[in-house]
């Protein structure tokens, strides 16, 4: 069992996303994160999802995805060298001496404080998912008010690209 990042190029059409999501629930696969947006070619959307499964299930997932009529191409980018990024907005309680602690932690993780209130900070942070998890852990006793994560997006580290 390992984490997979599956990248899908699909028709930018209503209903296409529900077919992908429906496939996962219908066949009992899990989705850990998912994001989708149009590409530079507006007729196409790029969807990235992460899931944890073994090789056999990954093979079935990619084959089942390819079978969907709206799906143009599918690639398990975690199979090869790749870049993985996720962005997180995190709102934490920050009063008195906690404020310097949050600021320091954010600097260490190369985050940015993007909003400030008298009782809170909102930090923006990007990186791979493990780094974002690490930041939350590093906050220790500081209470987290809200976490918003984009889900993973990724791209292969070679000239090979997922395009038409």
């Amino acid at each position, binding site marked *: 069992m390992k984490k997979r990042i599956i990248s899908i190029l699909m028709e930018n059409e209503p209903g296409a996303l*529900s077919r992908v999501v*429906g496939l996962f629930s*219908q066949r009992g696969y899990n989705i850990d994160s998912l994001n989708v947006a149009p590409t530079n070619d507006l007729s196409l959307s790029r969807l990235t999802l992460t899931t944890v499964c073994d090789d056999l299930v990954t093979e079935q997932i990619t084959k089942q995805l390819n*079978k969907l*009529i709206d799906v143009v191409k599918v690639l398990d980018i975690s199979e090869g060298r790749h870049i993985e990024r996720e962005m997180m907005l995190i709102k934490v309680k920050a009063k008195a001496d906690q404020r310097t602690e949050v600021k320091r932690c954010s600097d260490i993780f190369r985050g940015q404080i993007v909003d400030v209130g008298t009782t809170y900070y909102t930090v923006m942070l990007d990186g791979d998912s493990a780094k974002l998890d690490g930041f939350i852990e590093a906050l220790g006793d500081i209470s987290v008010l809200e976490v918003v994560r984009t889900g993973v997006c990724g791209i292969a580290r070679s000239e090979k690209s997922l395009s038409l």
Partner: protein
Amino acid sequence: MTEMLSGGDALIRALKDEGVELVFGYPGGAALHIYDAIFRQQDVEHILVRHEQAATHAADGYARTSGKVGTVLVTSGPGATNAVTGIATAYMDSIPMVVISGQVPSSKIGEDAFQETDMVGVSRPVVKHSFLVKDAKDIPMTIKKAYHIARTGRPGPVVVDIPKDVTNPHDKFEYSYPETIDIRSYQPVKKGHPGQIRKAMKTVLAAKRPIIYIGGGAVQSDSSDQIRKLVDELGYPVTNTLMGLGAYPGTSEKNLGMLGMHGTYESNMAMHHADVILVLGARLDDRTTNNTKKYCPDATIVHVDIDPTTISKTIQCDIPIVGPLEEVVGDMLDYLEENAQRADEKDLATWWEQCNNWREQHSIYLKPNHEPSKGEMIKPQDVLKALYKVTNGDAIVCSDVGQHQMFAAQYYHFDKPRQWINSGGLGTMGFGLPAAMGAIFADRDTPVACVTGEGSIQMCIQELSTCSQYHLPVKIINVNNQALGMVKQWQDMNYEGRYSQSLYEESLPDFIKLAEAYGHVGIKVTKFEELEEKMAECFAMTDRVVFMDIYVDPMEHVYPMHVPEGSMRDMWVSKTERI
């Protein structure tokens, strides 16, 4: 020259231009513009069924018999949801079908309008693809795409949902039907990989204990002739899945019979002991494999299928070939022509000796596994044997679901493809009668029998009325055991005979009177000695619907039967003997 047509007229014209001759359907509010367009033309014939489920099953039976795409037209809401069971049935068995559903007007979608259902959403898990048409101008292209998707690659049902305003007779546009189609995200594979085919053939030819395993894909792709040549050339034993019956002649000496849960002893034994299994157009589903962990331990599996998802889905495959079966088998024949090497004759002879030994031990065809019928004790197996005899094995047999279905699969030896029509994947009770109606529309010259039980037939019995309206002389063979036989069998075997909700307790209708009420002929059979004669009488009435209500032994079970969680070779071969 272009023509100005409304959406409704354009839809029907597009069907005509696509070559559609028949539509099975049922009208309703959201589809009324379309029904008016049907009224004003002669090219596309509409068959009015009595329930939308039957429309889909009839289109399905038509598709399975003819090889063409079946077409269904229903209204929104309940019309659409009633069709879903039939769509799911077609999806599981890879049957090409286009289902056109009316939808509430675009402006009302999402408002919970009268008879509104999100048909694209409801049907999504059981369709190959679906469309919601938002503009009348898109109708011709959508219909072209729908039929293309339904019939190519691994066939399947496609839903086209059309809001009522899109078919408005007052909004006209320039109609033209596209001649060709190219969908960039849908490119079904056209050839098998030559390297894989060579590798497969080397393995197949090096086999000592080979078996050729033929599934429904062989029927769907019309590969029977090619497969027959391949089997003749190789001389290997053959087995069929339930869906593959008829793809290779059932009466051939090389055919060990159906495999799987209720497959023959010889087929299941040969599978378990095989060293190479050549799978042609099958998906190795749970009813054929038994426990996948104990599946055919010595076998190298060569799997040919048009759909890559069927490969290594349940059973890890050793040599996969993705491609159209007729092409791949054609390439295999070419390979055999170019290469003189064949399987070792001695090994093959030993293997055949072993297979024939298994036949002699427990073949249901050589040694009946049931008591003989006598007087008022008619064994259901003998009903199917009589049907086979009376029809000379030439009928199209449309089955419902249950014990009678398995008996038909076991005892009617199908020699031709598209002769055996049944709901194998979804197991839809109620399928038989409407499917038989569809089969008659596809083939008016061959007798069509609906093998059913008193449980299944009551799930779509309303279609006796459709049979009257369109003069569809179905011969209904009701194997009446006064119980839900297969449920009862499982309750006997696994629940110590606690017949929970599987008995009718004297509530069955008088099927003879019922048939007569619809203007049909009813024949009741309670004595074995009259069975064959009355069946001959039934089939002699070529232009009538005949309902044969045949009372059979309610205690009979279907055997062989796989022992749950066992391997292919673990079977009950009779009520008392377990192998």
